């Protein structure tokens, strides 16, 4: 068990090896089977091997739904390739089904000819009945046309661990590592990282660590020796796809957390997070709470309102203030967002969107909070909106949202979603010295001379260029002032109910947001002759780009543009839209961006929408776009 053989394993040449350009694998099992961990490990092995990759974890909201049932199925899909890829893949080439429920829940997504590895130990009469199988699908011919590998995963795992003196139940828990070992053999994945990971994860339980490693190795050896697996596959590193640099695999929520820490450092301001746990945003709270040595304060509040309230209080005190949440939380925070608009203080509102309305689909993705972010407040309360387009892009988008918040003294929405949050991809680690400088000065003295020549401080006297008001933090002598949610007089900030002043202030707050400097929208149209534009925003970037590539591959000219700034829109957006005969807007909502651009630019944009809690599939999206081209 403590043998010091090399942990790096290479398949022998005895078996047939085939080269593949890309593979989509889906691990599926009970919520308690450790499928997310298995997927994460396979992803790490794949990342360290140098493939491009994209992942799609998919799990129920229940922590442990009843075992063996369809609602309890948890899955993890991974797409990896020797070239650059954009999505987690439409359909798996390989399904690992740990029980009948996992098979039944996922079979419809599999193309004929796909490989299915099933844990035959779980295909008992009772388990089959539980999910409504009248007959055993492994025997009734319903899986003809698939390459089925029946493997008694549980039995083999228990057998492999019999020397460890574990109970049968304890030993069975390592069956996911057996499956991981088998798949690692099949796809020539490096194994060292997983063994190191297991030793670290179970550092306090070395016996469990070694048992998991033994199960992992047993799975690998099973592939190597059993005749059922005659072929293994190689997917070469995607060396052409990546510019030189140091890379790591990163999920959207981790990238976003790092982006916030980086923004704090680049702004030379302490980071303050006021938050209330909510799926799928909680991981940002967890991550930031681990980095207190960066001066990060994380405050788990009594509710969503207090989360943003504390953040706003910290912003008043001169912190880079953030609140993280999902759609239902945004609804609760709305009044405080309005206060932040009125106070004109920097504040980041991170919304990891999920299926709605109400509680909706907590663990599934959707883009249906765009209009809530744009308009979900009383009165005229404009808030800038920034949306990342890939998991790794969450890092840059966080820095950009912070730049806008700080420079313009405004709350800013950062709209990520469940797909970006939990999905992952390779990320080129940036050099710290290349990060943008986000520092803004605090007010430090009077900024106005009254008619009688007195030097005074006016909290609402604006920078003529940005229209930002001064940020005067408590502790600065001579700048004592009072701000509030009541309308205030231009300049002095004193309470004012004057009609003309209110009209002026409403328009000025709008003008400030409208005037935020954002880069022009870039259009991708390689041939320059496209008459149709596909416009997206946020996490649909991957599927849209993949779909557009397919269409170009079959000879269509299609232009593509993707919005990072939803408020304000890039200055050239109207011009871009008017340059095409047709504009198609795919969204994971019922057409919210389409409604915005139709209203603002009077362009007959067509919506293509999907709200099934999952990202678009490239093939289906390509078909829909083709219809738009032909129609």
């Amino acid at each position, binding site marked *: 068990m403590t043998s010091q053989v090399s942990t790096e394993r290479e398949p022998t040449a005895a078996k047939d090896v085939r080269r593949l350009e890309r593979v989509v694998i889906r691990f599926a099992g009970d919520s308690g089977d450790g499928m997310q961990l298995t997927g994460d490990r396979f992803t790490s092995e794949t990342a360290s091997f140098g493939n491009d990759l994209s992942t799609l974890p998919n799990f129920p909201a229940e922590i442990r739904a009843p075992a063996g049932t369809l609602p309890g199925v948890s899955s993890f899909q991974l797409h990896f390739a020797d070239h650059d890829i954009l999505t987690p893949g439409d359909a798996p080439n390989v399904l690992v089904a740990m029980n009948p429920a996992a098979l039944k829940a996922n079979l419809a997504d599999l193309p004929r000819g796909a490989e299915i590895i099933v844990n035959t130990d779980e295909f008992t009469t009772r388990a089959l009945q539980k999910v409504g199988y009248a007959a055993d699908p492994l025997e009734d011919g319903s899986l003809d046309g698939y390459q089925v590998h029946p493997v008694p995963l549980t039995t083999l795992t228990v057998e492999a661990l019999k020397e460890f003196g574990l109970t049968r139940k304890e030993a069975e828990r390592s069956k996911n590592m057996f499956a991981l070992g088998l798949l690692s053999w099949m796809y020539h994945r490096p194994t060292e990282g997983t063994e190191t990971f297991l030793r670290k994860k179970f550092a306090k339980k070395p016996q469990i660590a070694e048992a998991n490693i033994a199960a992992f190795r047993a799975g690998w050896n099973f592939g190597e020796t059993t005749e059922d697996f005659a072929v293994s596959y190689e997917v070469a590193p995607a060396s052409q796809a990546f510019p*030189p640099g140091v890379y790591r695999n990163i999920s959207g929520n981790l990238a976003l957390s790092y982006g916030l820490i980086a923004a704090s450092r680049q702004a030379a301001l302490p980071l303050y997070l006021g938050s209330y746990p909510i799926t799928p945003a909680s991981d940002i709270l967890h991550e930031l709470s681990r980095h207190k040595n*960066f001066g990060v304060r994380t405050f788990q509040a009594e509710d969503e309102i207090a989360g943003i309230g504390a953040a706003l*209080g910290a912003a008043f*005190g001169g912190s880079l203030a953030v609140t993280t949440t999902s759609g239902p939380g945004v609804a609760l925070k709305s009044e405080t967002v309005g206060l932040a608009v009125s106070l004109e203080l920097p504040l980041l509102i991170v919304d990891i969107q999920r299926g709605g309305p109400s509680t909706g689909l907590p663990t599934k993705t959707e883009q249906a909070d765009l209009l809530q972010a744009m308009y979900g407040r009383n009165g005229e309360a404009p808030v800038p909106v920034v949306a990342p387009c890939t998991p790794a892009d969450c890092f840059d988008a966080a820095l950009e949202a912070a730049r806008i918040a700080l420079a313009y003294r405004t709350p800013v929405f950062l709209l990520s979603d469940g797909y970006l949050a939990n999905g992952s991809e390779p990320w080129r680690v940036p050099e710290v010295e290349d990060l943008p400088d986000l520092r803004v000065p605090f007010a430090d003295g009077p900024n106005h001379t009254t008619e009688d020549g007195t030097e005074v401080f006016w909290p609402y006297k604006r920078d003529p260029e940005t229209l930002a008001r001064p940020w005067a933090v408590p502790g600065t002598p001579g700048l004592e002032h009072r701000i509030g949610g009541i309308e205030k007089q231009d300049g002095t900030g004193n309470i004012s109910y004057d009609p003309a002043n209110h009209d002026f202030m409403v328009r000025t707050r709008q003008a400030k947001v409208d005037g935020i400097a954002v880069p022009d929208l870039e259009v991708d149209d390689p041939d320059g002759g496209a008459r149709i534009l596909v416009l997206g925003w946020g996490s649909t970037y991957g599927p849209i780009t993949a779909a557009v590539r397919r269409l170009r591959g079959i000879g269509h000219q299609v232009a593509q543009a993707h919005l990072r700034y939803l408020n304000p829109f890039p200055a050239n957006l109207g011009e871009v839209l008017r340059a095409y005969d047709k504009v198609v807007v795919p969204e994971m909502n019922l057409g919210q961006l389409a409604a915005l651009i139709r209203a603002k630019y009077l362009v007959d944009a067509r919506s293509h929408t999907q709200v099934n809690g999952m990202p678009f599939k490239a093939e289906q999206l390509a078909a829909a776009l083709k219809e738009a081209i032909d129609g």
Partner: protein
Amino acid sequence: MAETTETAPHLLSLVPKAAGKQTMKDFKSDQEVRWCPGCGDYAILAAVQGFMPELGLAKENIVFVSGIGCSSRFPYYMNTYGMHSIHGRAPAIATGLATSRRDLSVWVVTGDGDALSIGGNHLIHALRRNVNLKILLFNNRIYGLTKGQYSPTSEIGKITKSTPMGSLDAPFNPVSLALGAEATFVARTVDSDRKHLTEVLRQAAAHEGTALVEIYQNCNIFNDGAFDVIKDREQAQEAVIRLEHGQPVRFGADNGKGVVRDPATGDLAVVEVTPRNEADVLVHDAHAASPTTAFALSRLADPDTLHHTPIGVLRSVERPVYDTLMARQLEDAVERQGPGDLGALLAGGDTWTVAG
């Protein structure tokens, strides 16, 4: 992780001192005070402005945060930093400010509707966390700014615009509520008693952690005379129980009444003091570790007649302060992990290199 109160400097020492001597005038802003003539808020404002110079803190390091309601206009009249926020949320906003800036003296001004109705959740959580905030709860037992609906401290059966047949809900006793919410400092005082009010403010300011001060405040427009029984010299003899730490709890004409513990139930009762029971009269201990007796004292008050209403400091105990603990975790993290290295953080985890 107990706070070493013996050696740690007093939290007030983290707030910079004023350069010179201050007067009440230094704390008056240039804004015209816009409460109704005769409102109790004027007296409280004057008492706070008059007390502030005594603290001797740099006024730029003092912040008043309020919610919504008549009382919440208070920050506009203080020549310090201030925020008039939204309904009920002042404790949450002040928590963010106080926990991120320990060099500030942060005060919350709120009312019975703001603190106990729409903002009840934030109030109880601030108290249990023991954030370093001084919360002044102006209780007039009515909604003033919305023109006269009953409030969560109004007596049952209150006839108001929204309850023409009488209100149905039992009122909160703010002091009882605060004690139940793990408050470390709870006091009650009255707008018109400047001396008592100032003494309570003094003790609240010196307290490390959250201090809740309930101030009975007369709304002469919508609930005039609500506290007359406490303010009228003669009636007050029956109504008010003045608490002083270390003193027997006695009141009434010639201190003829006292509070004793019922040995059977442990509850408190008001009795005529006689030579036989004089030794049994409760001696007030504001520093008692258990809030039980303070709570029992708070329950002596009759919500309808206000008879036997205790005023003064009911509870003042030491408990680790949230802000201090939070700051210490940051220091500990630096000690354990070293100061944050962004480059190392970003390049952490499993990495691989793509060569040029």
